[in-house]
């Protein structure tokens, strides 16, 4: 894949958005191609603004939390290596320009990933494979901030339920209660049916955690702005938990449906693998859906902002801002919608797993 022609023709916004759509992906393969591409780009036009890198940087994870202009907060780096644990601040990398001599290896930030390097500053693949990055990155921190916010909100709501026992909800409580009721009456009850109460905690946690992360992702200033739910690793964790919950709560009818489906026996060699793939593919779809939706929203907003820098003209700003405003409002809806869809499908999968037949 060669995107240089798209990036070079900096006049057509459409092809830019298209190009961005095609290129967004945090996977290594793309990153490698991207790296080559960046080099080309650098050779061609040293000072040129590269929207792809800018956007990918913004939606990707980072060891720094960029606040404003040149200011960014360095985050703690925790590395588990075969020789021991390393702990230092990411400030030592100076935004990837410098290598850091740790206790066991020398480390360098390459594409915002920590790699072990040899004496010459080249990436040492053998050594790198022994280094596990457990840093508190921007996404980890953003996720924890969202979690803390949720904890604060719902604990205070819970305490007001205790204080105002039997009374009508008030304040934050009355804001939150309809949403809880929505999760219960629109998501859990119709999809799971009898015994839905058991799954209320996980459904509510999933819903509010995803929603809060989505919303914080839309805030461009410091505590927000991280693309947590648009990170495929995060959605992977969420959907893996969903898969575990679904399969561990499954009853015998669910397993019978997979291993002894109501088809002629000669179809079993086809049916059983298909059903087994279904077990995996449903949470897989959850993972991709959330990741792609949120990432796409962020990319569109960032692309629209990038237009200003591509055209190098402040005159584009009003148009960009107008479109961004529109997109942000849309994303506000998408933030809720994706949290809702994720939770609803979780409830649906749980529902199929615990359904009583006959």
């Amino acid at each position: 894949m060669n995107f240089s022609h798209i990036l070079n023709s900096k006049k057509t916004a459409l092809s830019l958005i298209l190009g961005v759509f095609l290129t967004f992906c945090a996977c290594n393969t793309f990153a490698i191609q991207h790296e080559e591409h960046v080099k080309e780009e650098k050779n061609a036009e040293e000072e040129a603004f590269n929207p792809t890198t800018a956007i990918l940087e913004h939606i990707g994870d980072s060891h720094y939390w960029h606040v404003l202009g040149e200011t960014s907060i360095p985050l703690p780096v925790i590395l588990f290596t075969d020789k021991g644990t390393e702990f230092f601040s990411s400030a030592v990398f100076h935004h990837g320009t410098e290598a850091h001599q740790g206790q066991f290896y020398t480390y360098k930030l390459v594409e915002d990933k920590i790699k072990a390097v040899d004496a010459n500053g080249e990436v040492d693949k053998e050594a790198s494979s022994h280094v596990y990055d457990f840093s508190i990155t921007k996404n980890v921190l953003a996720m924890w901030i969202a979690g803390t916010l949720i904890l604060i909100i719902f604990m205070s709501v819970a305490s007001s339920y205790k204080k105002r026992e039997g009374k009508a909800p008030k304040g934050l409580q009355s804001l939150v209660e309809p949403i809880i009721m929505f999760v219960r009456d629109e998501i859990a009850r119709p999809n799971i049916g009898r015994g839905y109460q058991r799954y209320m905690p996980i459904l509510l946690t999933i819903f509010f955690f995803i929603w809060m992360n989505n919303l914080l992702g839309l805030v461009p200033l410091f505590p927000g702005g991280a693309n947590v739910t648009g990170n495929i690793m995060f959605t992977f964790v969420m959907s893996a938990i969903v898969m575990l919950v679904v399969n561990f709560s499954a009853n015998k009818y669910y397993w019978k449906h997979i291993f002894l489906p109501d088809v002629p026996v000669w179809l079993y060699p086809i049916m059983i693998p298909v059903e087994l793939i279904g077990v995996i593919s449903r949470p897989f779809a959850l993972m991709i859906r959330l990741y792609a939706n949120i990432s796409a929203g962020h990319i569109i907003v960032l692309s629209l902002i990038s237009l200003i820098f591509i055209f190098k003209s402040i005159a584009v700003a009003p148009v960009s801002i107008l479109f961004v405003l529109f997109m942000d409002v849309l994303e506000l809806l998408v933030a809720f919608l994706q949290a809702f869809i994720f939770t609803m499908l979780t409830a649906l999968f749980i529902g199929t797993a615990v359904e009583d037949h006959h």
Partner: protein
Amino acid sequence: MEQLFEGLLNDHLGFVVWAAVAFILLLILLGKFAWKPIMQAITERERSIEDALLKAEAAKEEMARLTDENEALLKKARIERDLILHEARKVKEQMIHDARDLAQKEGARMLEIARIEINNQKAIALADVKNQVAALSLEIAEKVLRKQFEDQAKQDELIADLLKEVKLK
């Protein structure tokens, strides 16, 4: 393919672990300190609202029942009153009727007694008058006789007549 997954675990395992820890911690904490009390409170309140509604419905029914009962009682009372009034009227008429009867009878009886008394008194008076007349007659006769017998000749003559009459018999 190898290149695709190269460094995947090294770079992302940490994030996966942190995310999983964050989510599970959140699930446990929220489950214990938020969802449980909130859901309990909501269920409890819903139940109490339902109870209250049911009770209100029951109270309404009770009220309707009471009103019905009252109405029935009132109706019954009215009928009873009418009955009593009717009876009283009947009694009154009866009493008047009886009184009149009695009065008539009594009057008749008294009239009878009076008549008898009058008759008695009349008889007594008549007897008295007769006696007086008899006494007067006797007196008169005596006086007449005395006058007549003042003359001796006449006495002799009468005696002679009487003797003659006795001899004849």
